[in-house]
């Protein structure tokens, strides 16, 4: 904030004014009001920073300035050039095929991960350091071999096609697969993860799935191995080609070399594919997770089978129990039925006997009533008719009625009374519609 400019002059110090160190505190500020400031704008952010970190103005200024300076430095120091190996400095530029281009540019920690920008910056830095003119100015011998190496390295690495060719054979970027022994010490994921990460640089499909760790899900692990068994590699071996002679020398020779190169490339590619295949096989064989998944699966299967068996057994037992119960119930039922039948039979026989007896009584009563004939011995016709009618009545009535009739007749010896009883009975039967009018004439 720009300072306030006051153009009015200050008063002159009055005579005799004195204070300790020329300063006199007199009053104090009045109380402040609390208000909400709006959390908006760059100055608020500065305020919030000061308040949250409890900094004063000057502290905050200093810290901010420092952090700004640091940022610039970091940007600059982003491409730290690695110290050069003295042996490397003595390289001949002719031998560029065998040089480590990344080492020459001082970016071995990035290698295939280096961006184009990083390569450019690294190149610039190396050029500044190793330019032959500079060396000449410093009084050193005219030696531009390493400078040529640098130029060659940049030439290779800045062309995407040639860089891939070089990356394909850049053995320094390879990670040796660990031996079985090393793996069994327990750091499978760390050791093999590095291997797969390094191999993954050849994949046409990016990103490459990670090896993961012991907590990875089955899907992830399966996906990982499927990916590696179907690996699509861009790795080529053109970089290792023998130099093809100029075409104006000997055409046949040239074609021969070309063919040789072709075959060599194909062979190397096949070998590489086989190598990778074996590598994945090895990893798979050592991967604890696969075993665990298999065990888990087996356990799951066994569990399911056992459960099924137990279920079946339980069902069979239940069925047997059920059957037994049913049989028992049936037997009981049968016994009860038999008893019931016998009782019913006896009752029926008793009823039959009773009815017989009643019929006898009724018939006897007819005889007692002199066959309903009034006075003297009844003629044969009368007897016949009376007996027929009574039989007819007996036939019409059921056992209970018969019993009732018998009860009425019992103890009655008088012919008139008996006749009356029979008449009543006939009357009742006629009313009930069991007997037609005119039947049992002898009782009419």
């Amino acid at each position, binding site marked *: 904030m720009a300072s306030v400019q006051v153009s009015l002059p200050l008063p002159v110090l009055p005579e005799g004014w004195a204070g300790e160190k020329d300063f006199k505190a007199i009053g104090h500020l009045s109380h402040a009001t609390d*208000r909400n400031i709006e959390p908006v704008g760059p*100055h608020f952010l500065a305020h919030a920073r000061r308040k949250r970190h409890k900094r004063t103005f000057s502290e905050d200024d200093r810290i901010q300035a420092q952090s700004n300076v640091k940022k610039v430095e970091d940007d600059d120091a982003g491409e730290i050039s690695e110290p050069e190996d003295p042996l490397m400095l003595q390289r001949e530029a002719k031998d560029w095929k065998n040089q480590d281009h990344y080492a020459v540019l001082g970016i071995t920690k990035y290698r295939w991960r280096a961006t184009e920008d990083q390569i450019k910056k690294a190149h610039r830095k190396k050029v500044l350091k190793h330019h032959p003119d500079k060396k000449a100015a410093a009084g050193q011998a005219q030696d531009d071999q390493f400078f040529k190496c640098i130029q060659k390295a940049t030439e290779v690495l800045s062309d995407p096609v040639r860089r891939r060719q070089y990356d394909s054979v850049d053995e320094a970027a390879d990670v040796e697969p660990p031996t079985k022994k090393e793996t069994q010490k327990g750091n499978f994921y760390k050791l093999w993860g590095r291997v797969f990460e390094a191999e993954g640089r050849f994949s046409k499909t990016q990103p490459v799935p990670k090896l993961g760790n012991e907590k990875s899900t089955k899907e992830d692990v399966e996906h990982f191995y499927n990916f590696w068994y179907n690996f699509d590699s861009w790795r080529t071996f053109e970089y290792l080609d023998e130099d093809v002679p100029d075409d104006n020398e000997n055409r046949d020779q040239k074609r021969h070399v070309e063919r040789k190169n072709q075959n060599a490339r194909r062979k190397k590619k096949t070998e590489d594919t086989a190598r990778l295949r074996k590598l994945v096989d090895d990893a798979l064989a050592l991967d604890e997770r696969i075993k665990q998944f298999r065990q888990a699966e087996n356990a799951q299967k066994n569990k399911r089978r056992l459960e099924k068996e137990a279920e079946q057994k339980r069902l069979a037992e239940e069925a047997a129990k059920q059957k037994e119960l049913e049989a028992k119930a049936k037997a009981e039922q049968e016994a009860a039925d038999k008893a019931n039948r016998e009782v019913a039979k006896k009752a029926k026989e008793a009823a039959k006997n009773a009815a017989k007896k009643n019929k006898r009584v009724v018939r006897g009563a007819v005889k007692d009533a002199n066959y309903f004939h009034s006075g003297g011995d009844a003629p044969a016709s009368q007897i016949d008719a009376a007996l027929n009618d009574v039989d007819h009545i007996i036939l019409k009535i059921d056992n209970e009625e018969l019993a009732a009739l018998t009860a009425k007749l019992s103890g009655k010896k008088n012919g008139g009374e008996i006749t009356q009883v029979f008449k009543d009975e006939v009357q009742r039967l006629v009313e009930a519609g069991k007997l037609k009018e005119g039947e049992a004439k002898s009782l009419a």
Partner: protein
Amino acid sequence: MSPEKDPAQRVAIGISFGNSYSSIAFTTGEGKAEVIANEDGDRQIPSILSYVEGEELHGGQAKAQLVRNATNTVAYFRDFLGKEFKSIDPSPCHQSAHPVQHDSTVAFNIRDTPEEKENAVTVADITTRHLKRLRISASDYLGKHVNSAVITVPTNFSDAQKDALNKAAKAAGIEVLQFISEPVAAVLAYDARPDAKQADKIVVVADLGGTRSDVAVIASRGGIYTVLATIHDYEVSGFQLDQVLMDHFSKEFMKKHKTGGDPRENDRSLAKLKLECEAVKKALSIGSSANFSVESLAGGLDFTATINRSRYELLASKHFAAFARLVTHAVEKAQLDPLDISEVILAGGNSHTPKTASAVQNAFPESTKVLAPSTSTTAINPNELSVRGAAIQASLIQEFELEDIEQSTHPMVTVTPHLSHAVGVLCISGDESTGVFHAIVDAETPLPVRRTALIATPREGGDVLIKLCEGARHIKVTKPEPKAKQAKDDSDDDSDDESDDEEELREKTWKVGKVLSEAALRGLKKGAKVEVQINIGADLNVNCIFREVGGKGGVRGLLSGPKSQQNGSA
């Protein structure tokens, strides 16, 4: 970490979500806010959604549907968000889909699917759809997937409303980094201009919108803003200006066509009339006359008419006056005097109208700068003020973690003690024998604060006395003449000083005479200047340094806060 949560993956924009219009803006690499035009080329996108056979129309296309498809067009819904049905004012929606009660919230019954079935769509859903369209427009324009935003809201937006808006935004795929209030965003938009000078000032932001007017009085102290007072009015609005024109043209129409009938009585005619009147109003802000022309306005009759600006200003004068009154009322509410106000920022579409600006200018003294297109050539388009502020804020905070933003906007940080009185030094001037108060730190400045001032010395140099004192902020109703004169005197004395109003106050406070400290600087050179640095802590401790510019040594002093001091002297 999801891409939305990761500050590095964030693409943040500013969104101004208004009742009538919305706009979107982003900040360019150079830190300049730029307003984004949508597919139709509109920078002011009407906050309207319309459905035709299940197809969603948005913005200007939806606005055109107000005539033919009013019941299926949702407009002016912002203020309904997060409110209960019983507390909303549905009158702006009279000519579009009407709000209905739905559970405890507000919904609209619209046919928004191809099945042509009426669905109750809640206002939150409508907002989500609207924000989604804004997000898509911004993404298309930027070529990047926009996933976060700073959204401006009125100062009286409740927490529930903010919450509802936050949810709606989240559903639309926007992570709300922060809600900032519209007037503050407007001030920020002006302060973020590269040529803007940092000054202590009090700013009035007057927003004359379509359905409501909001006025806020904001103290800007070293780029930190404090809202001193706000006023909201739902009567004084741009609609009323439209209404004036609608009435005028209806009368003209009826005068010309006796058989046509009143176009205000037919829904479709009314909608046509309204759309055209809004266009006429906008045209009148630019030109001195405008054409009104509607085909088949009412009864199949076409109507064409012309209106000039003075006629319009005459017709709407009472509304302009009402707006000016509203602004001055807000100043009164902040217990300030119009002289205290350094700037009036006019926001909202109706600020384009020259009469609005002149009416406000008339309510304030000449020392007050009115920032509107008609009064200031450097004014920012009033429609774009808040969205620009939001975009700037978005660019400032987009690399912060959400948690960081939350902590920074926490009351622990935002609640700050503000100076109740100005603090300054005593100078001498020709006609004042006792001295003239000069503010170094203004009242309402949030603490802690650090300020420096350069003060002239007597011509001959020598020893000087520096008296630090307090200027009381009691605004007494004094006669306007001496006030004006005082202000004029000061501006003559030091024209570069922004705070003319403070000198006006100084007269009174100086007489109150709250001297804080005295210090002496001895043996000053001829024509030397004295630098005074004041540090006031949140505990009201004052740390001051007085020294000669270019000289050695100096005087330091410490004043302790009132709590540790005996209160007898006050």
